[in-house]
């Protein structure tokens, strides 16, 4: 085994341990039913590879789920014109803070159109003191359309292999215990 392979193996092991610690409650994948504000979360019946889609990160570079390989991704679609989305954002920041170094990434993706929309969305995050959430932009709705999003807000969760684990149409309190139980259940039941 090469040094790099050994390093990667150890790295993955550490991440797995961190995930369990971050969501430290017993495993209950099969009979799990979402509750609380995530009770309407629709768990994907079958994990399928996702069609490729990209969006722009804070620096304006194209990015995709491949950049998050090995991590679960909580992808929230929001817009400056969507009142329930804005109400929901602070809970995503708190979730991100609570997750710490766990292998779960929170990606909030603004669908405000074009460069003007991006500036408006950035300004709103600053004004609401949500700068802790990295800015991501789907200004031409490529990700939105590829994932077949119909209503706002919608949060799609991808497993560590980039496959959809499920989605929630509507807002939630993402840092409440029930939401964290959901993440744990998904991480247990949807291992690649």
């Amino acid at each position: 085994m090469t040094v790099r392979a050994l390093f990667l193996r150890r790295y993955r092991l550490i991440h797995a341990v961190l995930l369990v610690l971050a969501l430290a409650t017993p495993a209950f994948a099969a009979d799990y039913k979402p509750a609380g504000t995530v009770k309407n979360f629709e768990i994907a019946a079958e994990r399928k590879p996702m069609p490729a889609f990209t969006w722009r990160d804070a620096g304006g570079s194209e990015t995709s789920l491949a950049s998050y390989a090995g991590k679960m991704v909580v992808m929230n679609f929001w817009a400056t014109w969507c009142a329930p989305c804005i109400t929901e954002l602070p809970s995503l920041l708190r979730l991100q803070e609570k997750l710490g170094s766990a292998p779960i990434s929170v990606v909030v993706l603004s669908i405000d159109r074009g460069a003007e929309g991006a500036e408006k969305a950035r300004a709103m995050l600053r004004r609401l003191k949500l700068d802790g959430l990295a800015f991501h932009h789907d200004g031409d709705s490529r990700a939105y359309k590829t994932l077949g999003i119909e209503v706002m807000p919608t949060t799609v969760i991808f497993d560590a292999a980039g496959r959809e684990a499920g989605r929630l149409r509507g807002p939630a309190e993402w840092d409440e215990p029930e939401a964290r139980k959901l993440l744990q259940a998904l991480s247990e039941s949807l291992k690649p």
Partner: protein
Amino acid sequence: MSIDPRHLIQLAAIADTGSFAEAAARLDLAQSALSRNIKTLEERVGAPVLKRGRRGAVPTEIGAALAQYGTVIGAANTQANSVMTSVGSPRASQFRIAATQLIAGNFLIDPLTQFMNKRAEVSCLVQSGTVDELIEIVTLGEADLALGQFGALTNSSGLHLEPLIKDYLTVVGRKDHPLRGINGAASEILARAHWIVPRAHTRLRWEIENALKYIGVSSIDITYETPSTAVMMEIVRKSDCVAMVPRFAVSPMIENGTIVELLPDRTVLHRPIGILCQSTKRKSAIVNSFCQDLHRFARRAMANATGEQ
């Protein structure tokens, strides 16, 4: 002043754990917030409820009595939540609104945020689309109501329109545009102007063509077509091109003087912003309550805009 039952639950958690830090973790609350709440409780009771020492927090005599009530309230709260989770319809307190992005961002966002703050149990979904898409969404029952500039839409085809805000189409040009203040011969001058228009076969384009005919302009010189009002205004702002747009969409630009209305006394086509819903379907209590809030909000907005009291 009454005691907040949540503070009693929090006191019970401290009494149980003997520690602010552990109680805060159990309640999923910041320790600073917990300390603040206990201070409020002590102010309301008029006496200390906890003795803070090196070994942690111990309830005083009155604190112990109140903590017992906190335990009872906490248990009842847990039971009530479990009943709600098991029997409650998952979408009983959810409603769906569709709106054009312009209306969602400039009009809907404030009343909807206020409504959600007032009715914490209500969850809302928002869809955006063009006016044609909104009509389809409501017709198919995919939204409880839609907000948009529905213009001359009649209350037919099973749809009902409640007007909220007066709006009309207006002709705009850049600040200091040479055509500013044109009068009687407007139709001939406008026919010679360079126009930025929405794409063909859209509802707005159709309405603009009708409005131009109404003021006697039978054909125009089209310089550029775009579906985006923002792009239209960007070109208008930087050139001598003119455009016909909904007044509501460009109000902030007119008010800050970036663009001007070329025919300020000619409101050529009224197209009110309204609530569209199915005429045969009875509104739920939540939707009804939200519509009442929208009407109140619109009346205030109109009064502010016209300087009425």
